[in-house]
């Protein structure tokens, strides 16, 4: 059953997507409220001294961490979507819709209220919150209801609504100044990205993406259905929990750093599947690269669209993502 690793296709997909990522990174570096533009960026890249020396700081110390953090979050959330779609065999599954991001946000807020330093304890609290909602989700999924597999999605939507209510509850019962700035974080905000955050998320993402690539054959077999997978010798329990823990970890850390970015895990996995087919050994690297590019471009839009200030990038992802959900829903019904 195990087909040989489609190395040639993986390389081809990477060759196709890497230039896209590079272009997104360059665009993300070039534009913003502090000025710049492609010409100045290329001069800076070529090591030619800039007329305005501050621009170098803006490129490398402000925009670079921001672009990298966007790339990592995009990769994480796309991978998260891919895993949940395989695991639940539901094309509409995604960390935000399932309430996992919301659970992570509750964890992060409780961490802030408990006075834990945001780094690294805030991220761990966030991971715990994500894992908690995943646990609930799995529990609900084990119940037999007349709705079948849609019950799980509905449960997720309700978990998400519940998490939103808990977050608003926490905000309204505390007049804690530490929650003062939380609204922009809740809407997903990358404007204060720093290199330490990039390093943390990069380490977590690299480890999790490698592990997911290792599990991607198992994910392929899951598509055949749980019974079929079990009969083919897939250690179902171990695979399921492995996948859930890895995604919770990635999503939790990402939420603690960047806030709630909805529907990212929907857009890219589906596009990649349309382009490259259903083999997860190809899809895992594809989602990493494409998700990263997508989020960089969303963040760029968030920065340059408003005439004054910027908007939270979560607004952009939701504006693109929610209609995509409806579109996919329509396709799934047919």
């Amino acid at each position: 059953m195990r087909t040989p690793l489609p190395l040639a296709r993986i390389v081809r997909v990477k060759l196709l997507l890497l230039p896209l990522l590079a272009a997104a990174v360059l665009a993300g570096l070039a534009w913003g409220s502090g000025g710049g533009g492609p010409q100045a960026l290329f001069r800076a890249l070529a090591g030619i001294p800039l007329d305005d020396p501050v621009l170098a700081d803006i490129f490398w110390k402000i925009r670079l961490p921001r672009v990298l953090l966007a790339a990592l979050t995009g990769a994480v959330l796309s991978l998260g979507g891919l895993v949940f779609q395989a695991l639940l065999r539901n094309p509409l599954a995604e960390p935000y819709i399932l309430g996992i991001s919301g659970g992570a946000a509750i964890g992060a807020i409780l961490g802030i209220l408990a006075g834990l330093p945001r780094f690294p304890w805030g991220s761990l609290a966030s991971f715990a919150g994500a894992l908690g909602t995943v646990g609930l989700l799995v529990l609900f999924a084990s119940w037999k209801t007349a709705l079948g597999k849609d019950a799980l999605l509905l449960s997720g939507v309700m978990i998400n609504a519940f998490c939103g209510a808990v977050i608003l509850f926490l905000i309204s019962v505390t007049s804690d100044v530490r929650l003062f700035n939380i609204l922009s974080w809740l809407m997903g905000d990358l404007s204060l990205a720093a290199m330490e955050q990039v390093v943390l998320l990069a380490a977590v993402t690299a480890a999790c993406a490698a592990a997911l690539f290792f599990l991607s054959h198992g994910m392929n077999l899951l598509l055949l259905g749980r019974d079929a997978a079990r009969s083919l010798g897939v250690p179902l329990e171990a695979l399921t929990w492995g996948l859930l823990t890895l995604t919770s970890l990635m999503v939790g850390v990402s939420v603690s750093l960047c806030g709630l970015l909805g529907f990212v895990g929907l857009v890219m996995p589906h596009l990649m599947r349309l382009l490259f087919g259903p083999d997860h050994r190809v899809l895992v690297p594809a989602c990493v690269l494409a998700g990263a590019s997508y989020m960089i471009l969303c963040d760029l839009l968030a920065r340059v669209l408003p005439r004054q200030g910027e908007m939270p990038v979560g607004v952009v992802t939701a504006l693109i993502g929610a209609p995509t959900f409806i579109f996919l829903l329509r396709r799934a019904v047919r």
Partner: protein
Amino acid sequence: MSGSLSRRLAHLAPVFLLFLVGGEAAAAEKRVLFDQLGRRLEVPAEPRRVVALAESVTEIVFAVGRGDRLVGTTRFADHPPEAIRIPRVGTYIQLDIERIAALRPDLCIGTRDGNPRAAVERLEALGIPVYVTHPMGLAAMIASVREIGRLLNAAEKAEEVASDLERRIAQVALRAQSAGRRPRVFFQIGVDPVVSAGRGTFLHELIEAAGGENAAGEAEGYPHYSPEHLLRLAPEVVVITTMSQGADFEAVRRAWQRFPRIPAVRDGRVHVVDAAVFNRPAPRLVDGLEQLARLVHPEIAAP
């Protein structure tokens, strides 16, 4: 409060003239000092390009006569009128770090009450010193005036402004004392829902200094109130600030008229005041204090 304040000031008193940064054409002299949070920082001896990270800071910088050094300010800075022409760097809660960097400031002055700590850290990572004020209360606001004056080498002017503010506050206190009774004042800063200011806020301090008793004083921070709770509180004076933009304040005042049992309503003591002088910890706060004192104790109105 006053103890920790004097300790902070003691921190600041020795302002060392330190070393010269050589190399560039305009070698700038530096000095080391501590901001109002007690953080050590190195600032230019003569800051020339200053970004104010809050509206209150902008007002203080202008008050000490250094408005011409401001190259950036926050979105709602509208006082004094000259401030309107200064480039904007986002709101004080959501600062636009890129734009601040592009303005090449040699000093940023922020506020603990609102500026995200991460934003301050990002700016400092770029080598831009950020002096953080912590103007929680009248005394601390006046201390900020003196500190910002010293920071921008306008200590004399700042001292003049600060001691004038202190004199005016003392006058209000004197009059409040002679009045004796302290009416219960309800300060309404939010319209829908009704929000007031409890203990630990500078509005609370303002009410007390004006010779009133804060009707919301049993709560801390910024409590919300339901209509029934308001009836229970039975304030004798109601002061509504025009904080919520675009609301119809005559309608808000009429809403109070539904409850003629409330002493303030019965006695016609529901007032609307301009939020601008009440919601920023800047010298205009003392204008607000004087205005409030007149509303709380009209019987001993100031000349």
